[in-house]
């Protein structure tokens, strides 16, 4: 029998540092698979800011930069402008990108920085124990919206990042995928590869938003968490390409 699938050794030989069933584990693998297949291991600078992504520091055998919370796109801009031929991959959570770092992601995108942003949308602050995130759904419970997020009570609406960024001229590619089923994991890998190819071909800013499970803070089993994505999240966060080669493809304004 021939080995048809094996572990990617860009990850050190250790259990992944993430909770059982966490989407980060899958997405990390997809990112390092895309990096390996593009032969970019020596050229990649992985940006893991603040949030669960910090766990990458001891898990991934890559050059890694830890920027301040939310400032990943700014630090990435500094790196990419200083080293234009490096492959700069941003790995951000919903707090980092869509809360404290909203200005930075919008302006890096608008400048068309030639970088690839992996945006893990799990609708919660994971590392700090389950607070409401900018993408927490209406009615979804979190420690800071214990009765369910209520836009009517000033807790705001879940932010659709792809739709927010697609209008910016500097954005070449914006897609939303998910990792809640195997076919979707494969689609996510393809989207990440597109984002990396865009960067290598100097086509400008790419962002791949990935719906991902956080079983521990959602208080659901891994299976139920993936069902939550299917039944609750995708309705509000439709999957697909929002911008490709600089052209807007779909909008979701309901």
């Amino acid at each position, binding site marked *: 029998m021939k080995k048809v699938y094996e572990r990617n050794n860009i990850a050190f030989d250790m259990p992944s540092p993430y909770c059982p069933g966490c989407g980060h584990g899958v997405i990390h693998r997809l990112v390092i698979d895309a990096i390996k297949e593009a032969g970019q*291991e*020596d*050229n990649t*600078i992985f940006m893991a800011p*603040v949030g669960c992504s*910090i766990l990458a*520091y001891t898990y*991934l*055998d*890559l*050059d*890694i*930069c*830890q*920027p*301040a919370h939310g*400032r990943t796109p*700014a*630090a*990435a*801009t*500094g*790196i*990419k*402008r*200083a*080293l234009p031929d*490096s492959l700069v991959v941003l790995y951000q959570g919903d707090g980092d990108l869509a809360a404290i770092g909203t*200005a*930075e992601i*919008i*302006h890096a995108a608008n*400048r068309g920085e030639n970088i690839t942003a992996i945006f893990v949308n799990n609708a919660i602050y994971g590392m700090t124990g389950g607070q409401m995130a900018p993408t927490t759904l209406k009615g979804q419970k979190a420690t800071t919206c214990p009765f369910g997020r209520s836009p009517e009570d000033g807790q705001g609406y879940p932010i659709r990042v792809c739709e927010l960024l697609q209008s910016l001229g500097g954005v070449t590619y914006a897609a939303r995928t998910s990792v809640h089923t195997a076919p979707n994991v494969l689609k996510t890998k393809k989207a990440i590869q597109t984002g990396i190819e865009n960067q290598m071909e100097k086509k400008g800013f790419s962002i791949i938003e990935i719906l991902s499970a956080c079983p521990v803070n959602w208080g659901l089993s891994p299976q139920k968490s993936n069902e939550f994505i299917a039944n609750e999240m995708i309705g509000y966060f439709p999957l697909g390409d929002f911008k490709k080669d600089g052209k807007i493809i779909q909008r979701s304004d309901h």
Partner: protein
Amino acid sequence: MGEKQLMKGNEAIAEAAIRAGMTCYFGYPITPQNEIPAYMAKHLTIRGGTFIQAESEIAAINMVYGAACTGARAMTSSSSPGISLKQEGISYLVGARLPAVIVNIARGGPGLGNIAPSQADYFQAVKGGGHGDYHMVVYTPETVQEAADLTMKAFDVADEYRNPVLILGDAILGQMMEPLVFKEPSGKKFDKSSWTLGNRKGRKSHLINSLSLTEGVVEQWNWELKKKFDLMAERELMVEEYMVEDADVIFVAYGTTARICRSVVHQTRKQGMKTGLIRPITVWPFPTETIAGHAEKTKHFFVVEMSLGQMIEDVRLAILGNAKIHFHGRPGGGIPAEADILKQLKAILQS
């Protein structure tokens, strides 16, 4: 010897940075330092460097953080409120052991304040405006020439210690024009290959980071930082002692107020009064021993600041009661007048 030029302080600082090999500058508009980003936008880019007007001072300092990760010489500049926004970034630069040069052309505060000169950012600069135990060398130039020289030196000091360095000027220094001659860059080379990110061929991965959740690790990093800070304090002190040997009253002042005090020293010397000036060129490290040494003989020290009095605390710590300390301060953009200083000085000498 380069040729003599007449230049604005802000532009001299910008040109000096480019000549020192700075390749990445990230800024944001705020008076009274706007000539620096404008100069970079024109002169840095045509000489192959990178200029970005960032979306905020916070983004700018974090762009510096990123560029520094690659070993590039990077700089940002701003003025008081903008420097407040950069404090977290400065703490991160120290924590991640990254070299960078930051320029503060200070203005009146607190709050939005005004665009007049001020020295009320002293505490922020030397006592650490950000979080955690950290220090950085802080230069306080008095002239456009010195501002250019210290900016060039700042890049060597930043690289040598892998730590940010601050140039602390004010609106007058930034806006006035004075003749200067740019010195040749030191040509010092710094091998950064053991820690920089990118082009990983043939080496193990590098991690640039200031976080560790493992017990005792961040404490250990702090003890290593302390060794570095002690070295910086020992080696990077710069102070000018002017006519202090026989002085009955010694002024202590830096930057713009040192210029004012220097002319008061000239006037009073002509009238037979023995006055002198100690001028910190680095306010961190602070010339504590220099001042303490003179306190054995000279019994009056006269601190003049454009603030409600901040450096005076470090002067007190140096003198520890061995001499009397007098103060004249003008906050909120006010500029000390020689006449007011003279009046107060005469009162001191009569008592």
